[in-house]
């Protein structure tokens, strides 16, 4: 197995501790950071997504793999920036105002990162103004999560705030979370809906044509 393949497999298996020395070794051997990113990490997370959609992987395996991917990406990131490697797009993500649910949103953020997007994670309980503020710095996707029926309406409020700021055409809006349905996404004027972290990547790619 080549070193890149080893990195890929280590991420799929979720071994954060093992992936870091392997990435360092690859860099020492002169493999381009971009190659490690694409053929190692992104390819691994694609496989993780596939395994999840097939029902082979569940959330725990996905979390553990995403964590390994993040550990590797932390090493590559500064090098990628130095070499001017462009991300697939910029994503602003957060759980809407009034909602403190973190894990689902973080998993989506990590999967998007693992697909090659640059992700700005605003965290939980994010006010509409914070989404607008970050969107003003430029973004291709705004992704919102809500886990409560009581906080779901804040997705609509956020979209309205983006419209009011005249930024609605700048980015596509993606929504998700347990109580959210495709019908609700359409009703509030979102561009896309994803039921889980893996399909979020697919929808994000479709909507941005990447």
């Amino acid at each position, binding site marked *: 197995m080549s070193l890149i393949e080893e990195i890929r497999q280590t991420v799929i298996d*979720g071994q*954060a501790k093992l992936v870091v020395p392997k990435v360092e070794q690859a860099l020492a051997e002169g493999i381009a950071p971009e190659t490690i990113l694409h053929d190692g990490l992104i390819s691994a997370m694609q496989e993780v997504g596939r395994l999840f959609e*097939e029902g082979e992987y*569940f959330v725990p395996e996905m979390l553990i793999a995403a964590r390994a991917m993040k550990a590797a990406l932390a090493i590559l990131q500064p090098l990628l920036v130095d070499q001017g490697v462009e991300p697939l797009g910029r994503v602003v993500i957060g759980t809407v105002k009034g909602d403190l649910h973190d*894990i689902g949103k973080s998993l989506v953020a990590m999967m998007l990162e693992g697909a090659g997007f640059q992700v700005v994670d605003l965290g939980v*309980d994010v006010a509409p103004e914070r989404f607008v503020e970050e969107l003003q710095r430029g973004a291709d996707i705004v992704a919102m999560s809500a886990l*409560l029926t009581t906080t779901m309406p804040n997705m609509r409020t956020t979209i309205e705030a983006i419209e009011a700021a005249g930024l609605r055409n700048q980015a596509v809006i993606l929504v998700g979370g347990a109580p959210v349905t495709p019908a609700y996404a359409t009703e509030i004027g979102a561009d896309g809906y994803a039921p889980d972290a893996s399909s979020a990547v697919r929808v994000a790619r479709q909507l941005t044509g990447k």
Partner: protein
Amino acid sequence: MTEIAFQPIGRRIAVQPGTTLLEAAQDAGVALSAVCGGAGVCGDCRVRVLQGRVSRLNDVERDHLTEAEQASGLRLACQTIVEAADTVVVDVPRESLSASQRSQVEGEELPLPVDPPIAVYDLAVTPPSVDDLRGDWERVRGIDPAQWQPSALVLADLPTIARAHGWRARMIAHGRHIAAFLPPDAEPLGFAVDVGTTGLAAYLVSLKSGDTLGIAGATNPQIAYGEDVMARLTFAARDRHGAQRLQTAIVDGLNDLLHEVCRQGGVPPSRVVEAVAVGNTAMHHLLLGLPTEQLGTAPYVPAVCAAMLTPARDLGLRLAPGALLYLPPNVAGFVGADHVAMLLATETAEQPGITLALDIGTNTEISINAHGQLWSCSTASGPAFEGAHIRDGMRAADGAIERVIWQDGALHWLTINHAPPVGLCGSGILDAVAMLRAGGVISEMGAMTRDHPAVQGENHNLWYEIVPARRTGHGRAVGLSRADINEVQLAKAAIRAGIKLLTERAGLSESEIDRVIVSGAFGNYIDLENAIAIGMFPALPLERFRQVGNAAGIGAKRLLVNAGERERAAALVARLRYIELTNHPDFTDRFSQAVKLTPDPWD
């Protein structure tokens, strides 16, 4: 109006056309399981319409019911709307009912002197005569009536009691507030109750001896309106009379328990002169009728944190006419007075060294006392250990598998009351996961192998058959699926991540913890070795763990019997530092590691 008859329970109710079957069931007191509170998300409220006209099957129902289930006439009660008809007959399958919980009321008690917040005054009343035509109250001796202001409701008992008992009576007062007039020599009693989201535990206590005279447990009747805190807060916010209906439900439930414990003690409820209720912040607010909107949305602040002392009659509790109800202080939106009561009962704050105290439930509250410094947090462990979202999960009731062992290459089981198995309760679910891991049927990540004869299912929908259909109580196989294991991993990861972040905040490592106090219904029954094996608890020597039962209920009793405990509660809350985990920068990372089924998940 349309009459709805729920079978086989035999409850009937008349409702307006346009009402859903779930609403009708709730009004009729049929405890239909509705985890989501009727939002069409959980798919639990399954019923069959045997007769009468109702709305047609909608898309939400098609999503939740297989074609075979649809063909068998199953419907979701929350989606089925009553149309004009003479009678609608609805069959409620047993598994759609919120199973009555095995009452969880026992707990470990530490010694405490009796020093109640009420005082007893023995009164004599001068008989009236032509020379003394003053009122009964004015003729009282033993106190100076002019110094007291009894309410009409309380005073109403005095003339009867004095005349029936040779012009003697007993006055019970809380400070300057008169709680009751009792017959002379009548022992003043107290009522302590732990208002859990799922279960209620009530105690009748002598305020003279401190003895417990009656104990009873029941399911929280609010469960018909949603199984978890959020579902109830949603119901309170969405339904116009939601909050009021929830309050009525809990007050009725408490009155039933009061009646039961008084029956056990052979005394009338009018002898109960003081009460204590502990519960999480949502239960606290719903009981008191405080607004809950701000509890359901971040940053989740309570209407009040301070201890409350309020006339019990104002809430509809049928105690002595002037009895006061005390509720200890809340810590934060998700750490309520029940956790404070638990910390009091276990004397967590007084322990030397490092003590970790956990109350495991849908939300798990954790506190750490590190050499006198106190921190607490709340973590969303979910309802998996209460049997929700688990294929064959159920609450601890007859026929629930409560123990599972691995022997000769397969799982063996034991049910509550040795009834034929019908599902798994929390301790059984935890055992099954640990044993399947020990037997190599599942991996550290929770993935299930196909290479075991008991593993069934197609593609990736694998499940382990614990009991074949021919040996169960309902003729369907009982098992544990990969998806169930996933739920357990997420639940235990939330608990372990909470423990880890709390110890880190105190500047400690998990191995330095001197003692772990585990309270709550589920916590009392779990096998500690298995809990350690799957990484729910740190791998500490077993002798450092103490399973203390319903410590919140015992804490409520202490707050009833000893007034000093109320001061301790206030002092404790002032010392506790609350840590919000959801926006903690390390939470996702710790949680992601803690999902692994291993005693030490940390890199």
